[in-house]
C-alpha cells in the first residue's frame, strides 16, 4: 500500500449506514457482506441487509435492477437496518436513482459514484449520467465521482469482476478498518480459488484503499471494543437451517419459494453430510405430507416455506393437528396476498398461522425476532412439537431472511437433539390417545412399537383412534387438543417490558421488528418520553403476565408490518376499522384498547419512522394529561 494522506480529516462516529449499489452480478452483495464481516471482527455492531431485484437478470443500468447491500455499523450492538443511508457507493447512476426515489438516502448524504459513464461512447448514457449528476448535486447530495473502472483496469483486464474489491478497499479506508482483517477476509471468500485470484483481489483492495486515502479528504472511525467471544455472522435463513441441524431433526421436505428457499439451499448443502435429508417435493402439499409421514414414523420433521406455500399446506397442517403428529412448519413471510411481493418483507401471515386450516385447529405459533433467535427457535420448536405432539409454526420474514447480524457462537448441547425413536412395546391396555384430563397430553405410538398398532385418522376419533361419529367423543378430542396449548402456556416465562415497567405508552410488537422498536424506545426515552415496548416471541399461546404489563401503561399500541385501516380515511371509523393482527388479538384477549400503526411498504420498518409516528401521538392532548 502507498503513503498516508496527512491532510485527511477523520471524524469519530457512534454509527453510520453505508449502501453499495450495483447492477445484478457486479458483486455489491459480496462487497457489503465482506465489509460487515470485517467490521464485526473489529468488534463493531453490524446489521447488513440485502437489496435484491425481483428478476434474475434485470437489464443493466436500470432503476428496478438495483442490487446491493446496506450495512449499518455501530460502536454498540446493532439490531436493525436503521434509517436513511449516510454514504452510498454506486456502480452506475441508475441503480442509485432507485434508492433516491425510495427515500432511502439521508438528505445531503455522501455519494461515491462510478464516473466511467461520463466517457461512454453512447451519448444517451452520457446524458443520463450528466442529468442525474446535476440533479443529485442540485438536491444537495455531496457527490464524488470515482474512476473505479479506470483504476481497476490498471490491475485487471475485466474490472466488472473485481470492482467490488476495489470498493471494499475504499470502504476500509473510509471507515478506518484494519486492512489485515480485510486481506484475511479476501483469502477466506476466495479460499476455494487459486492463490493468483486471491493476490489479484488483494491488489484491488489495496488500490481502493490508496485511492480513497489520497482522493477523499474525509474519513470516519466507528470505535469498537473487540469482542471477547467468537461470533457467528450469518443471515436469518442460514440460522434457521443451522437450527434444523442443531435440533436433531432428520428430514426437511420443501418446495422452492422465495424468500424461504435459501434456508433449504444451505441445508441441502450441509444436511446430507450430517446424515439428514432435504427432500424437494413435487409441490407444497406433498412437502407438507412428506414431512407429516416422516414425523409420524420417525423424528419430528420440518417443512420450510413462504406465504403461498403456507396456504397450500393448510389441509396437511389440519391433519397433523387432528392426528396429533408433531411437525415444525417454517413460514418466511413475504408480501401478500397471492404472489404479492415475493422478495419483500411483511408480517401479514399471523392470522393464517394461528387460525389457518378449517375447523378448530390449535397449533403453536412462534415468531423469530433476531438472527440468533432464528437459530434457537428451531431447537425450541422441535422440542415443543415433540413434547406436545403439536404443529409448531415458526414465523420469520424476508427482512430477517437475508439480514446478517453477529451473535455469540452457540455452544453445542446434546439437549438440543431429538431423542431416538421409541421402539419399545406399548404397555398392555395403553391407548394411542390417552388424553390427560388436565393437560390434554397423550403418548404417541410410533410404527415399530409392538402392541401399539392402531390406525391414525384425520376423522374424529376416540382414545383408541377409532373413528367417532358421536358428538361426545368429538368434543373430548377437541377438548384435549385445545388443553395442550394451555399446558404449554403454563411453561412459558412471562415477557418483560423493555424500557420501563410503566408509563404513558407501551408499544407491542412481534417478529422481526424487535430491534427497530426497541431502538425507537431508547431514542424516545432519551428525549424524556415515558415509552416502553413489549415483544412477543410466542403468539399462540401467549405467555402469562401480559395483561398486567398492558395495565401499567396509559396507552397501548402495536407496531407491525401488516395492514391496518387508517383512521383518517373518510369511511373508516371505530365500527369498521380493521386493526393490525396483533392489535386485534390483544384487544380480544385482554379487553384493552390497543391501537396500532403499521407499514406495508415491503421494507423493514425503520426506527426513525416508528419514532416519527410515536412523537406525533405523544404530542396529542390525551398523552399530555
Amino acid at each position: 500500500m502507498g503513503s498516508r494522506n496527512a491532510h485527511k480529516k477523520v471524524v469519530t462516529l457512534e454509527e453510520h449506514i453505508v449502501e453499495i449499489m450495483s447492477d445484478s452480478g457486479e458483486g455489491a452483495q459480496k462487497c457489503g457482506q465482506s465489509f460487515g464481516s470485517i467490521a464485526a471482527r473489529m468488534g463493531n455492531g453490524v446489521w447488513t441487509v440485502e437489496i435484491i431485484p425481483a428478476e434474475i437478470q434485470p437489464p443493466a443500468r436500470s432503476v428496478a435492477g438495483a442490487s446491493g447491500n446496506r450495512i449499518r455499523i455501530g460502536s454498540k450492538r446493532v439490531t436493525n437496518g436503521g434509517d436513511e443511508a449516510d454514504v452510498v457507493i454506486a456502480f452506475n447512476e441508475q441503480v442509485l436513482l432507485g434508492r433516491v426515489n425510495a427515500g432511502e438516502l439521508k438528505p445531503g448524504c455522501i455519494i461515491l459514484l462510478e464516473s466511467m459513464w461520463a466517457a461512454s461512447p453512447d451519448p444517451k448514457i452520457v446524458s443520463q449520467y450528466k442529468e442525474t449528476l446535476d440533479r443529485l448535486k442540485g438536491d444537495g447530495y455531496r457527490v464524488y465521482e470515482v474512476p473505479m473502472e479506470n483504476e481497476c483496469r490498471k490491475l485487471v483486464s475485466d474490472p466488472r469482476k473485481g470492482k467490488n474489491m476495489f470498493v471494499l478497499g475504499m470502504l476500509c479506508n473510509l471507515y478506518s478498518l484494519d486492512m489485515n482483517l480485510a486481506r484475511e477476509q479476501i483469502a477466506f471468500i476466495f479460499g476455494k480459488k487459486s492463490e493468483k485470484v486471491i493476490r489479484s483481489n488483494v491488489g484491488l483492495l489495496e488500490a481502493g484503499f490508496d485511492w480513497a486515502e489520497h482522493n477523499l479528504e474525509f474519513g470516519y472511525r466507528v470505535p469498537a471494543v473487540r469482542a471477547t467471544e467468537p461470533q457467528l455472522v450469518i443471515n436469518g435463513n442460514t440460522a434457521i437451517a443451522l437450527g434444523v441441524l442443531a435440533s436433531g431433526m432428520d428430514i426437511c421436505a420443501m418446495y422452492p419459494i422465495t424468500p424461504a428457499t435459501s434456508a433449504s439451499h444451505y441445508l441441502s448443502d450441509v444436511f446430507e453430510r450430517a446424515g439428514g435429508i432435504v427432500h424437494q417435493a413435487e409441490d407444497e402439499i406433498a412437502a407438507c405430507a412428506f414431512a407429516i409421514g416422516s414425523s409420524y414414523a420417525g423424528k419430528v420433521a420440518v417443512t420450510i416455506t413462504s406465504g403461498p406455500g403456507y396456504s397450500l399446506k393448510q389441509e396437511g397442517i389440519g391433519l397433523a393437528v387432528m392426528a396429533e403428529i408433531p411437525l415444525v412448519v417454517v413460514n418466511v413471510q413475504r408480501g401478500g396476498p397471492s404472489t404479492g411481493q415475493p422478495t419483500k418483507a411483511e408480517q401479514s401471515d399471523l392470522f393464517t398461522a394461528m387460525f389457518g386450516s378449517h375447523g378448530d385447529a390449535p397449533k403453536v405459533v412462534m415468531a423469530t425476532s433476531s438472527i440468533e433467535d432464528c437459530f434457537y427457535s428451531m431447537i425450541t420448536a422441535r422440542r415443543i412439537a415433540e413434547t406436545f405432539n403439536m404443529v409448531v409454526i415458526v414465523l420469520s420474514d424476508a427482512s430477517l431472511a437475508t439480514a446478517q447480524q453477529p451473535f455469540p457462537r452457540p455452544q453445542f448441547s446434546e439437549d438440543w437433539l431429538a431423542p431416538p425413536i421409541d421402539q419399545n412395546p406399548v404397555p398392555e391396555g395403553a391407548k394411542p390417545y390417552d388424553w390427560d384430563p388436565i393437560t390434554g397430553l397423550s403418548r404417541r405410538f410410533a410404527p415399530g412399537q409392538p402392541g401399539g398398532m392402531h390406525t391414525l385418522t384425520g376423522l374424529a376419533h376416540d382414545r383408541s383412534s377409532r373413528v367417532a361419529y358421536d358428538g361426545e367423543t368429538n368434543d373430548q378430542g377437541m377438548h384435549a387438543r385445545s388443553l395442550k396449548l394451555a399446558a404449554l402456556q403454563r411453561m412459558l416465562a412471562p415477557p418483560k417490558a423493555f424500557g420501563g415497567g410503566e408509563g404513558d405508552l407501551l408499544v407491542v410488537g412481534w417478529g422481526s421488528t424487535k430491534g427497530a422498536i426497541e431502538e425507537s424506545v431508547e431514542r424516545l426515552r432519551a428525549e424524556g418520553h415515558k415509552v416502553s415496548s413489549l415483544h412477543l416471541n410466542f403468539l399462540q399461546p401467549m405467555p402469562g403476565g401480559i395483561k398486567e404489563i398492558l395495565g401499567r401503561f396509559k396507552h397501548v399500541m402495536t407496531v407491525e408490518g401488516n395492514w391496518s385501516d387508517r383512521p383518517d380515511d373518510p369511511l373508516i371509523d371505530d365500527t369498521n376499522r380493521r386493526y393490525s393482527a396483533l392489535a386485534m388479538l390483544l384487544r380480544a384477549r385482554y379487553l384493552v384498547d390497543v391501537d396500532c400503526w403499521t407499514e406495508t411498504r415491503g421494507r423493514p420498518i425503520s426506527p426513525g419512522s416508528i419514532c416519527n409516528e410515536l412523537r406525533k401521538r405523544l404530542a396529542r392532548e390525551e398523552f399530555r394529561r
Partner: protein
Amino acid sequence: MSTASICLNHLFDEQRALEDYQGGMPRWCKGCGDNAILAAVQRLCRDEGLKPEKTVFVSGIGCSSRLPHYMRTYGFHGIHGRALPIAEGIKMARPDLHVFVNTGDGDCCSIGAAHWIHAIRYNMNITVLLHDNHIYGLTKKQASPTSPIGTKSNTTPRGSYLDALSPLTVTLGVQNVSFVAQAVDWIPESLFQIVTAAFRHRGFSFVRILQRCPEFVGNMFEPWVHDPQRMLMLTHENGIQVSPALQKIYRNQQAHDPSDIHRAREIASSEDPIPVGILYRNPQVPCYEDLRRAGMLRTAGSIKTSLEAEFDKFTVWP
C-alpha cells in the same frame, strides 16, 4: 432351554393367523370389491409373515381408503389425495417398515394425480393398490377420471363427456416406472398372486385393481365378470403362472415377458379384453430412499461435528 427349542418357540411366536391382521369389521357395502382386496392383503401379510408392528397401511380418502381401519397393523388414514407423499415420508424416515398404500381412482388419479406421477419417478419401495371402481362412492356417485365416457352419475346426469384416463398407460409412461400390474376383484386367486408379486418387488409397485361397486355402478364390469374369454391372462416364467384350475376358466392367455416395456404399453392400452397380470417389472431401477439415505448415520457426535464445522465457516474470532 436349548437353543433349538428357543428357536422353535420363536418360530411358533412368529406364526400368525389371518385373525392377527384383522382389525375392525369392514363397513363396505355388500358385494363391494374392496372386501376381496382386504382379504388378499390380509392373506399376503400372513403368508409373508409380516410383523404387524412393522407394517403400515396408508390411505387417502374414499371407500378404498377405509382399508387400514380393517387391518390390525399400523395404519394412516390421511387426507384426500395425499396418501402417496405421506407414505413416502414414512418410508424415507423408516425404510425398515413395510409400507402399503390403498387409494382410489379419485384419490390417486384426480386429486392426487401430481403425487402419483412423482411417486412413480421416486420409485420408493412401497406397494400401491389402486382400488379402481370407475366412480366416486363415498361422496355418492360422481364421475371419476376413470369413468368410461357416457357414465351417468350425479354430476354427469346425461353421461360423462370425456374419455377415461388409463392408470396403466399413464404409469407406464413415467420415468423410473418399475412395477405395473393389473388385477380384478372377481378373480381372488390371481389378485392374491399379483399383490404378492407387487409386495416382493423392491420399488414402487403399482397394482391397478378393477373393483366392483354394486351400489352405484353395478353393471360396470358385468360383461367381463360373466365372460371369462374377455379376460386376458398374462403369464410368463418371470411373471406369474395361471393355476391349472384358473386355466380351465380363463382360456384366453398370453405369454408376456414383464421386462418388455413396449409390449407392456400395448397391453395396457387394451380395455377389452381386460389384461390381468404383471405388465411390467424392472428390479434395476434405484429406489429414492436408497439414493438419499446412503451412509445416513445420525449420532450426537456426527451432528456436533458437522455443526461445529459449519459454525467455523461463519465464525468471527475475537
